[in-house]
């Protein structure tokens, strides 16, 4: 028999740990052809952070995205970064990139002001690769011209270095109280399942994931992160387990043939992904992280849905078909007895 149920789970997840130094460094140079090179320690592991970091730099310096080249993933060339993990790249490396880009922009505008014969650069605006006076837009020059002037005439190549680390704030030793993270990420997910009471199979028929990651800097990347997280969460909730050999020791399923991860047929066709965009004032352009916690509410939502469908409460993951079937039998036995 097929039993249907719905379950929900909410979460908050810490972002930007403050317990100890947690830095990200960035380096930017603007070339005399108007392009820029962004050098960052944060490594893109497939989530698209190179795109996102380039977006921040380009936005801040008034360049086109295509004019920013990102150098990363080589510790010999790039500044220090505490690592890609814990949702920290957009928030911490993003802040570092924004701070650095601001410095580069300042140098650029100062050079432009000198070239234009202005006393200071306060009224200058950069947009789409050009610098102009706010109240007299005809008075303009390209970023390439300003950078060349700075390099060749002022003898000041446009280079900027900065970093970001959340203000360190150790927890109170006695009580453990304090502020261990700068910001929090929030999410709610709802799963609809069908439980096959003859086999214990749990089919996730629909999954709704709504996240608050602050302002989305790149909605497609955010969507991809949430989708990936949800699939990981389904694996955590229903499939993935390391089976130890109690007699011989060792692991009995040390390959992807026996360690089961969800396939495309195990993922709900109906996945609704949305974001509540509440800008985080400490984040770059209001952004926070999104990645890791996307898989956190999935398994609990599924487990709640199984309970809603069948009355069976699974208390150790994953809820494999065997575990669910035995729990159903146990429940039947209790109800009859």
């Amino acid at each position, binding site marked *: 028999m*097929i039993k249907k149920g719905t379950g929900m789970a909410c979460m908050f997840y810490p972002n930007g740990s403050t317990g100890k130094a947690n830095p990200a460094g960035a380096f930017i140079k603007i070339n005399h052809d108007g392009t820029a090179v962004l050098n960052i320690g944060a490594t893109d592991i497939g989530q698209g952070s190179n795109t996102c970091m380039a977006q921040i730099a380009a936005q801040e310096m008034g360049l086109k995205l295509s004019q920013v080249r990102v150098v990363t993933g080589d510790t010999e060339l790039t500044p220090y970064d505490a690592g890609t993990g814990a949702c920290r790249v957009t928030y911490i490396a993003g802040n570092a990139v924004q701070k650095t880009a601001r410095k580069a922009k300042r140098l650029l505008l100062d050079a432009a002001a000198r070239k234009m014969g202005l006393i200071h650069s306060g009224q200058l605006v950069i947009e789409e690769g050009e610098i102009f006076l706010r109240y007299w837009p005809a008075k303009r020059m390209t970023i390439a011209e300003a950078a060349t002037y700075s390099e060749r005439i002022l003898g000041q190549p446009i280079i900027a270095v900065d970093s970001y680390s959340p203000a360190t704030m150790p927890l109170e030793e006695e009580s453990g109280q304090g502020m261990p993270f700068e910001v929090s990420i929030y999410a709610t997910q709802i799963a609809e399942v*069908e439980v*096959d009471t*003859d*086999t*214990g*199979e749990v*089919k996730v028929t629909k999954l709704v994931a709504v996240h608050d990651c602050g302002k989305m800097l790149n909605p497609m990347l955010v969507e991809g992160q949430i989708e990936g997280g949800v699939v990981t969460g389904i694996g955590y909730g229903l*499939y993935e387990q390391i*089976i130890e050999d109690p007699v011989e020791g060792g692991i*009995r*399923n040390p390959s992807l*043939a*026996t360690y*089961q991860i*969800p*396939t*495309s*047929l*195990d993922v709900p066709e109906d996945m609704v992904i949305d974001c509540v965009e509440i800008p985080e004032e400490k984040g770059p352009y209001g952004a926070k992280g999104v990645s890791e916690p996307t898989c956190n509410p999935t398994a609990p939502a599924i487990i709640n849905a199984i309970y809603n469908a069948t009355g069976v409460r699974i208390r150790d993951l994953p809820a*494999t*078909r*065997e575990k669910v*079937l*035995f729990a159903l*039998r146990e429940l039947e036995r209790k109800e009859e007895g």
Partner: protein
Amino acid sequence: MGYQFITADSVPHALELLERYGRDARVICGGTDLMVRLHLKRLPECVFINIRNLEELRYIREEDGMVCIGAGTTLSTLENSLLLLGKAPALFQAAQVFADPNVRHSATVGGNIGNASPSADSAPPLLAFDGQVVVARKDGRRLLPIREFFTGVGRTALEPGELVTEVRFKPNPDSAFVKVGLRNAMAISVVNIAASVDLAQDGTMKDVRIAVGAVAPTPVRAVCAENCLRGRRPEEAVIRQAMDAIQTDIKPITDVRASERYRRIVAENMMRRVVLKACRICENEGGAGR
């Protein structure tokens, strides 16, 4: 000796090579089982006789009321065969849930039964149809009932020098297949089961054949369950009896995928499902064995 790889350019050539290399020869076609074992270093040194290029072994046709399938026919050909869809849905459905599309494009019927895995998905339908295996050798050929083909885990009744060239069976549109694995694709069956039912006008099952895999050293016919059902209607009480009876037909073990207890419960539940599906009583129940 190491591994050698020889490509046969015709069936007679393949048979000659098989005779020449005898016990050292290993027939390879889709390679979806052998290549995995080779990579895991679990394959003894051998001479691969490659029959992948033999178009003459790739066909599905009807002859005198029998469906004949060449041993080199891929599972993806089966899952796209209108002939099987209409006349042998059990085998059609087994092909649909077999591994994943990549594997189905390469894996073949002959390879799937020749590999003699207890969980081979094409075996229960062929057993439920009471099919035959056409076995060729250099000096002739023989017909082997599929019931006598599997002799143990990874073992068959094939003699050195012999090649499976065809499987054939009398098709039955009142047939069905159900598979339960640990997930819905790329899953080795924990229980797979096929049923073929001869229905009388009044809904009585004149004859019924049920075959189940992954619950014994070989895929097996569920003879005790069949006896409970034969000559009766697929009613609740009858099916309950057959569900109890199938426990004597099977001898599952506990392995890394599932426990003996799980296999026993699922085997009886899926027997009910596959019989009802074959009788077209409750199709599309969803869940396992879509």
